[in-house]
């Protein structure tokens, strides 16, 4: 078996690979500091959703999902529970469906079936998925009020919501008093 000849790779390739490998361990040790890309969208009810405006009220949880993803259907009732628990305390939850035109017509029935009350945006052109580098669904992205991504959960295993709750609690206690009415706030 011959060896992979990485030494023959282009110098730019070698430099980029080396940067990725060298940066990875260092970054993993540090606290989250990736800024969330700004976005403006319209939800399925026709309401404008702008990240900067939402962050003015408190932390934001973005949940990327799709109708064809089975783990999403299991995780979303947990996201709804988080929405109901933390929305009065300032958290805004936004569901972002990455469904393309093939499944667009199934988004609203899916939301109705699961009884979701937080706002749902359909990312029809894939721009949000691109900006947040979403590589799989479900992916939950938690953003603090300064616009920094503090946690990203890719995939879902039962119980993952506990760590997400802890992270939200930490943010809520940091920003107590910032609560305000947001889109899709649950009716108690």
């Amino acid at each position, binding site marked *: *078996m*011959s*060896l*992979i000849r*990485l030494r023959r*790779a*282009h110098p*730019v*390739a070698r430099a*980029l*690979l080396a940067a*990725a490998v060298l940066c*990875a361990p260092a*970054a*993993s040790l540090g606290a989250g*500091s*990736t*800024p969330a890309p*700004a976005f*403006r969208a319209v939800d399925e009810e026709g309401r404008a959703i702008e990240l900067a405006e939402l962050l003015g009220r408190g932390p934001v949880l973005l949940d990327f999902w799709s*109708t*064809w993803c*089975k783990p999403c*259907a*299991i995780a979303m*009732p*947990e996201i*709804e*529970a988080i929405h109901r628990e933390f929305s009065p305390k300032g958290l805004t939850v936004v569901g972002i469906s*990455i*469904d*393309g*035109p*093939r499944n*667009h*017509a*199934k988004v*609203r*029935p899916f939301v*109705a*079936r*699961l*009884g979701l009350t937080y706002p749902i945006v359909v990312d029809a*052109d*894939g*721009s949000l998925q*691109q900006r947040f*580098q979403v*590589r*799989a669904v479900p992916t939950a992205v938690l953003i603090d009020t300064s*616009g920094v991504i503090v*946690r990203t959960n*890719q*995939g879902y*295993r*039962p*119980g*993952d919501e*506990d*760590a997400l709750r802890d992270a939200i609690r930490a943010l809520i206690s940091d920003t107590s008093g910032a609560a305000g009415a947001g889109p899709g706030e649950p009716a108690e």
Partner: protein
Amino acid sequence: MRRRARALALLVAALSLAPAGGAAQIAVTNLLDVQNGNVPFSEPSDRVDLYNRLDLDYRFASGQAGLRFETNRNSEDELTYAEITHRYAEWSDGGLGARVGNLYTILGRGLVHRSFELPGVVLEQVGLRSRYSPSRDVDGAFAEGRWRLGSLRLLAGRPNSGEFSPAGEEAGFVRYSGFLTGGQAVLTPVRQAKIGATYSRLSDGGSVLHEAGSGFVEFDPLRIAGARGVSAPLYLEYARREASFSDWWRFETDDGTGHALYLAGNFLWGPLGLSAEWKDYADFRLGTNDPPSLVREHAPALLNRNTHVLNAGLEEGHQIEASLAFPRWGSAIVNWSRSDGRFASGPVRFEERYAELHTPPRAGAHWEASAFFAEGEDEFVGIDERDLYGAAATVIFAKGYSVTLDAQRQEATRLGQDFDDTYLGLTLARSEWGSAGAVWERTNDPEQEDPEKADDAAIDPRHFFGAIFQVRLTERHEASLFYGERRGGRACTAGTCYEVLPFKGAELRLMTAF
């Protein structure tokens, strides 16, 4: 060299646009995939293949810029490449935005144009042993404006078919060909209504390869009428190719006229959800579009592998789905899809009747289970009859620990020959840590027969066994390891189907994001 120079120029331009002292940072995601093994019955059986994709994004207050570097190398030293495959810079301010470089967008519901990529998918080019991330992007420029009463979207650039690896270019496969221009104008007179028009034109040299346009309306008559607690959003789009505006207005739908007609409607009332869609496509495989296929996208492995692939060249059909949630108990879904097409030998039909039960869909439950049944036919690929059924259950047996059992079976007839498939999966998961699982498949499908036993009169069943481990190493690093043998065939992700090669060996994937 020219692409690399343009990438650097874009990055420099983006950096110069960033406000001095403003919040800006680089985000990095990396996907490393290493295989040791090969397609079963191929030599060498211990081929080593390394694929890496690195995405660098520089974010600043009013936009971002980035590039993607991909490389694929293998122990045979064939069809290797290492190059920057994507680069872009985008800016947005209020309702205005622009992007140059590799871009993605959609016009209407994709009848006339859709550019996209498949998240997390690494493919091997059919006919070439070269791996890449499939992307149907446009390399050019895009601008969009959104106002209270509507929006305008414009694009121009060279489209990528997404079917070829960068290494394929050395073998004569052209990834970016032709020049595409297009746009969309939308008027939003009230919140629950939109009316719009789209246009696209693909040319190469002096000749026009296609020119297509559509008009669409989207509205919810019940919401407009002030109804509460019930809604019925409707969508209608009609597209024509190589037609003047007066031709388009005639609304012709005969098979000899290049057209695409798509209608979709929902009815939502509390826990009841209905969706009904209708399609009528003729001569509408533009290569740069993606009309809705109206075929359910299934998650279970056997159903997913048997997904019908749309032929927009000539296909007509419908999809009707109803879902009902039973509070505290669960939910039910029924779906009926049908597509009619025509081959030289005569008419062909795909039909599927599907039912699914899921319980209980609520937070904090200590178990969940689902069961499905599907029956139908797909004469487009010679399947005369097919029954598929299965069930999956997850039990949380300690804090953070869960076990999932997934069982599926298919009994089918292809061109008069019976065969069956059985699938069993068992996964043990620990939240925040990862999971360990095993998958076993058995099939006597003649198309999967061991070539060394092909002369036998009877079909020898084949067995596929694989072990899968997934580990969350840190918040920013995830690893997965597959060891064993997995079937190839069709797979569908995010509404798009593609062919996956079978594999026997070990595969390690490391994903990093920071």
